């Protein structure tokens, strides 16, 4: 009897770890950092962390949709740059173009890039890895041609608003990121479309047979991801007041990492927008904390690698 009770308890602990592993890891990280550095637990610093990671965060929202279908989007970094450069060009001081037009053009660019990948993936059956890699290099090529490899500066004050203003203590970027989290969660969890995203990631054939419009659903996740990437590009360029043709490089990896730390599986069918947020926080807090603690960047890498491993290990106890 006693033994039974014991084993029941054991199961519970590992179950809790399994279910809340990353959350616990995040909490531990948070507490440790609070004690280690007294600059960590301040309102400004916490908002800073959110603001500094909003760009990756917005990317990760779109990436989550893609990953849940079992896909991958390697083009988001290049889309960040392309959308940012198109928009900043139009938003340069004295261009005479209303800032909203600049923003719309940026977003449409992202949507178009996403649609491009989506078409090849959903219709032509090209593996997402290749299709989005191609979109990535093509978009990067276009932005280099467009800017001649030079940053676009001198953007109007209106354009800077999103990236450089705070409402009280809350940076506008943070508000926007939270908005993406809310809308993303809603779309993925509470709508038919979201269900279909999970369905095709969980078993594409079964989804097809059930009458899910697999092609359209798959196509749309890349459009969503492209949209998010473009928005991230707008945020980034507004924040640094520059359109960087070489910007956003490698961001895809950060976005994917956040989603996976947050529980998404690259083989599809699993993941959540909120999870991607947790992933962003784990990495963001780690970077911020280690910087505050003045840890040399070489050692930071070693520590980061180890901690991400531990965080995910706690999470994957399940099986």
């Amino acid at each position, binding site marked *: 009897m006693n033994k039974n009770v014991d*084993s029941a308890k054991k199961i519970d602990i590992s179950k809790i770890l399994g279910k809340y592993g990353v959350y616990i890891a995040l909490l531990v990280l948070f507490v440790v950092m609070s004690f280690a550095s007294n600059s960590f637990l301040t309102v400004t610093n916490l908002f800073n962390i959110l603001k500094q990671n909003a760009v990756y965060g917005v990317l990760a929202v779109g990436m989550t949709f893609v990953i849940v279908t079992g896909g991958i989007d390697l083009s988001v970094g290049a889309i960040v740059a392309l959308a940012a450069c198109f928009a900043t060009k139009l938003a340069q001081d004295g261009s005479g173009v209303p800032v909203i037009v600049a923003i719309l053009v940026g977003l449409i660019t992202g949507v178009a890039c996403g649609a491009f990948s989506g078409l090849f993936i959903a219709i032509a059956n090209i593996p997402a890895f290749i299709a989005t890699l191609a979109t990535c290099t093509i978009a990067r090529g276009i932005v280099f041609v467009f800017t001649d490899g030079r940053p676009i500066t001198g953007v109007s004050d209106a354009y800077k608003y999103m990236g450089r203003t705070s409402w009280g203590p809350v940076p506008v970027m943070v508000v926007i990121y939270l908005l993406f989290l809310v809308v993303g969660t809603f779309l993925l969890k509470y*709508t038919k479309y979201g269900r279909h995203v*999970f*369905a095709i990631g*969980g*078993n594409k054939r079964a*989804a097809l*047979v059930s*009458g*899910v419009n697999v092609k359209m659903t798959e196509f749309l996740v890349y459009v969503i991801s492209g949209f998010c990437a473009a928005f991230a590009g707008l945020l980034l360029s507004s924040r640094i007041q520059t359109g960087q043709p070489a910007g956003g490089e490698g961001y895809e990896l950060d976005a994917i990492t956040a989603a996976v730390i947050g529980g998404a599986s690259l083989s599809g069918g699993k993941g959540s927008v909120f999870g991607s947020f947790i992933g962003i926080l784990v990495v963001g807090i780690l970077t911020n904390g280690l910087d505050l603690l003045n840890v040399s960047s070489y050692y930071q890498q070693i520590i980061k690698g180890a901690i991400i491993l531990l965080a995910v290990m706690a999470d994957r106890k399940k099986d």
Partner: protein
Amino acid sequence: MANEYLLEIKNVRKEFPGVVALDNVSLFLKRGEIHALVGENGAGKSTLMKILAGIYSLDQGEILYDGKPFQAKKPVDALEKGIAMVHQELDLIPEMTVEENVFAGREKSNGIVIDKRGMEKRTKDLMESLGIDISPKTKIKELSTAQQQMVAITRALAFDAEIIIMDEPTSAITDREVEQLFKIIRKLKAQGKAIVYISHKMDEIYSLTDQITVFRDGCLIGSVATKDVTPEKLINMMVGRELNDVYDKSSPKTEDYDENEVLLKVENLTRENEFYNINFEVKRGEILGFFGLMGAGRTEVMDTVFGLRKAEKGTVTMKGNQMGTVKKAISNGMAYITEDRKISGLNLIASVKDNISIAYMDMVTKGKFLIDFKKEKENADELIKKIKIKCSSRDTLAGTLSGGNQQKIVIAKWFMGNPDLLIMDEPTRGIDIGAKAEIYKLMDMLVKSGKSIIMISSETPELLGMSDRVIVMHEGYQTGEFRCGELDQDKLMAYAIGEGNKYHQ
């Protein structure tokens, strides 16, 4: 004026690379009719139904729905026309819940937000009417194959379809659920719906259907009223020859095995929430049957015996050696035909040959490491012939074979090793009558040469026909053990539902 036929499928032809799956076949379906579609494995039954359901397109021929030409380009077209299908391969989404699966693609919503509550309730109601008790919130991956099959059936019934296609819906479920299903099918018939029923089980065909259409090798053999055809004649139409005494077990069903060496000994085996205190022995030369209702825990016991799950308490001893891992099990002569070919039986994207050799690679290697391709090919060809796997070549991908033929690969793979103890979990799931007889013969040969078999089966005739001894399980407990002579169907069922004590007086 309504047409005589709700559905007319005329002169359909369908080719896959290297195979003519259907050649000039037709099928006519009336309202209020339960229409059996039968034929050997690979005859083309599923293919025709998939054409109807919009999964494949046809190469030639035409389909009339209520007199008007109809061809579904994608599954959703068929669904919208009121054609629902229970797929042979179930096609569920493992990470999603029962409710999510039932409503996949046809979710209820208020226009924007999905109505989760409503869908859960409807799922629960439907399942209750089928006599099953599974929470709509359970993930599919947590269900047994049998339970999954019930979910697939629920899904097909959820949308008030006009034509319901059932492709071997009872291959994994037990008699109790079958009865419940039949009641519902008859009710649908009474409502004027049309049902296409594909099955390899003769008793089902005779007790349920009105009309039978027979395919063989992609060709139409004929269509007859059920009442006008004898089982012998029907089998003849299917296989093209006479077939007698399917459950032919020539080895004596006596107690002789008592004296034989104990091959496998299972003592006090327990896994919390799955099964408790399981004890049994397998002697050389015997076939030990396992019976139970769906969810009784038989699969879990065998998984544990084979080392796929860790025993929490108790021991498994094979030939005197303590077991615990798959590696040990196999090296001590155990083999395990699992109940779900797609999840744990086959590599669908590998060839028939590669699937056959994977468990006993050492038999087709030179010096442990290097593959002996010649030997491997010969070996595969031999088994393909012996078990009658219908495939265009040994290099065909397993995933492109018909369901029954896929099952045969799993059987071939384990027969290859000539194991001392073969555990078979629902081994004849989806296998046609002719091939079943072959498999029974192989089983017979195996035990005659001093090997043993554990057979889990929900088909009582097969279980009673083949076993020397039967163990019955109920909700994780061993409720009875019988010699074959002592058994009948009612008694089995009584013990399976936990009311065996009635028989004790």
